[in-house]
């Protein structure tokens, strides 16, 4: 699984990542048609090795400190892997609180993706001048809308801050539960946000639907292909984000694997290292690397579930499903955006439901045990897709092996395919035009990948697109 035999090993200075570009290679065939496209993600790969030799109890704090975009998701996946190693059932209140924390992460992350990263594409158009097709251009006419987006994200951030004790990288969730219960004041503080948050999300969904209408002609080119979909579903098949089992569905709506315990993830998926990317590229094992390409994240989650657990989001899911017709799944990456807004609605409704649970303010939030299992897997749905933490420990809890399977890696093959499709449609001759660059950027953005945190200027992806002939000669390249 790991590419330890690679002799061309380099040391990555985190600072150099600040200046990096997301590199894309488009290769043409002998007839000048698009043959292949690759989205090179320069992800950091040393982390898993670095963790070996540490104690399993350190992992929630460590992983959430390292991963900047969704620390709460790593916190939960790591704590759950720890639960598995202790082989205990955590108190019900602890699970409810972990769920609230995860929804805070979703709201925060989805709001940023929708209002600040994607809205400029939607509201200003793909062919708008790149100098204004960004947050600044958007502010000119949509100030109030953006302000609401900032408030919505703040709500998610507040949940994380309130539960995590005012620190973002906090080991609040631990193997066995969480450290602190929820006080009455904290409960009231979160509840006070709900009406405003719900109103904002409903408005976002309205905007999203009008965007779906306006771009009806463009949308079919945005990563429109059948793939497998992977995510968690609850025991009864409904939408899940914290517990449940893995469901794998194909692009025609057939369920291939259902409610598989996360502990058995390696039975379903294989990871292969590719020489063109730092990411391990996972695929559905029984279909092989090419056919086994799968997508995770909002689009996948809405495709695989039988129903949402909350009324407004369920009504919206039914509308979403109509995009696919009777049998099929929604196979168009553009609808990741729509799925994301529906998930925001679910998150707000679900926080409301959880706050009303009689045990949410319970005081018993942590169970304690010794190492009872030498191996543990924790899975949860991070904003961008299913996240797996797999640890192997010795009898003292010292980590012998760590494997993390992250959403952006799982979506990498589909992102390549999306870029290929856009290039096939919008590449004109042998030149990388601004219009092509814009659409590639928008195509990748559907997946909201967690790229190196700081490589972009306020919302504009730092892209380096290289166009190659069949023999590898560079025909054109464009950077911004």
């Amino acid at each position, binding site marked *: 699984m790991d590419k330890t035999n690679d002799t061309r090993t380099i040391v990555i200075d985190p600072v150099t990542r600040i200046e990096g570009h997301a590199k894309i290679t488009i290769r043409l065939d002998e007839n000048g048609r698009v043959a292949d496209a690759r989205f090179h993600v320069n992800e950091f790969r040393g982390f898993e090795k670095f963790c070996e030799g540490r104690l399993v109890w350190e992992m929630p704090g460590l992983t959430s400190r390292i991963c900047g975009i969704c620390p709460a998701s790593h916190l939960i996946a790591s704590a759950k892997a720890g639960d598995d190693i202790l082989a205990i059932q955590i108190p019900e209140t602890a699970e409810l609180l972990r769920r609230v924390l995860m929804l805070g992460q979703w709201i*925060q992350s989805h709001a940023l993706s929708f209002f600040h*990263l994607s809205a400029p594409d939607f509201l200003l158009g793909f062919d708008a001048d790149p100098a204004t097709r960004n947050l600044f251009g958007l502010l000119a006419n949509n100030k109030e809308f953006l302000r609401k987006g900032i408030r919505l994200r703040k709500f998610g951030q507040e949940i994380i801050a309130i539960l995590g004790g005012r620190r973002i990288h906090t080991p609040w969730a631990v193997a066995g539960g969480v450290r602190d219960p929820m006080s009455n004041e904290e409960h009231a503080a979160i509840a006070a946000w709900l009406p405003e948050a719900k109103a904002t999300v409903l408005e976002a969904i309205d905007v999203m639907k009008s965007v779906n209408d306006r771009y009806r002609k463009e949308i079919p080119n945005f990563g429109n292909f059948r793939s497998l979909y992977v995510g968690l579903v609850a025991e009864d098949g409904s939408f899940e984000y914290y517990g449940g089992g893995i469901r794998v569905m194909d692009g025609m709506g057939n369920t291939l694997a259902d409610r598989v315990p996360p502990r058995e993830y390696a039975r379903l998926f294989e990871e292969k290292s590719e020489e063109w990317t730092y990411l391990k590229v996972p695929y559905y094992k029984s279909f092989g690397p090419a056919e086994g390409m799968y997508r995770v994240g909002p689009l996948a989650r809405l495709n695989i579930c039988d129903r949402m657990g909350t009324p407004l989001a369920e009504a919206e899911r039914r509308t979403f499903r109509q995009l696919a017709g009777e049998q099929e799944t929604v196979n168009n990456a553009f609808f990741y955006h729509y799925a994301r807004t529906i998930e925001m609605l679910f998150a707000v409704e679900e926080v409301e439901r959880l706050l009303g649970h009689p045990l949410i303010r319970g005081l018993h939030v942590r169970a304690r045990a010794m190492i009872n299992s030498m191996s543990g897997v924790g899975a949860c749905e991070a904003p961008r897709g299913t996240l797996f933490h797999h640890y192997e420990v010795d009898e003292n809890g010292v980590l012998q092996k760590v494997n993390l399977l992250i959403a952006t890696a799982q979506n990498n093959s589909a992102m390549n395919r999306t870029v290929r499709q856009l290039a096939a449609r919008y590449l004109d001759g042998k030149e990388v035009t601004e219009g092509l660059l814009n659409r590639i950027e928008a195509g990748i953005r559907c997946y909201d990948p967690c790229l190196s945190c700081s490589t972009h200027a306020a919302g504009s992806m730092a892209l380096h697109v290289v166009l*190659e002939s069949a023999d590898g000669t560079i025909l054109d390249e464009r950077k911004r």
Partner: protein
Amino acid sequence: MCLAVPGKLVRREDGSDPLMGTVNFGGILKNVCLDWIPDVRVGEYVIVHVGFAISKVNESEALQTLQLFKDMQSGSHVSGKSEAVQRKTT
């Protein structure tokens, strides 16, 4: 996974819309949007995602994280290839 490299806010452009500022990442200066955390002060550490400062980190947390990156750099490696090697093979 993406790395959360904390940077120090060295300048705020008060009055700009959106609110922008300059963040120093170990000597590299980046212009970032501060709208998500408008109360951030010069000298504070922030985590930046796609050009947006998404959260504040207190100084001791930030320094611990930076130390962690240093440890990773000296004690471990990245499997894969450098940009230069990639260019040759793709």
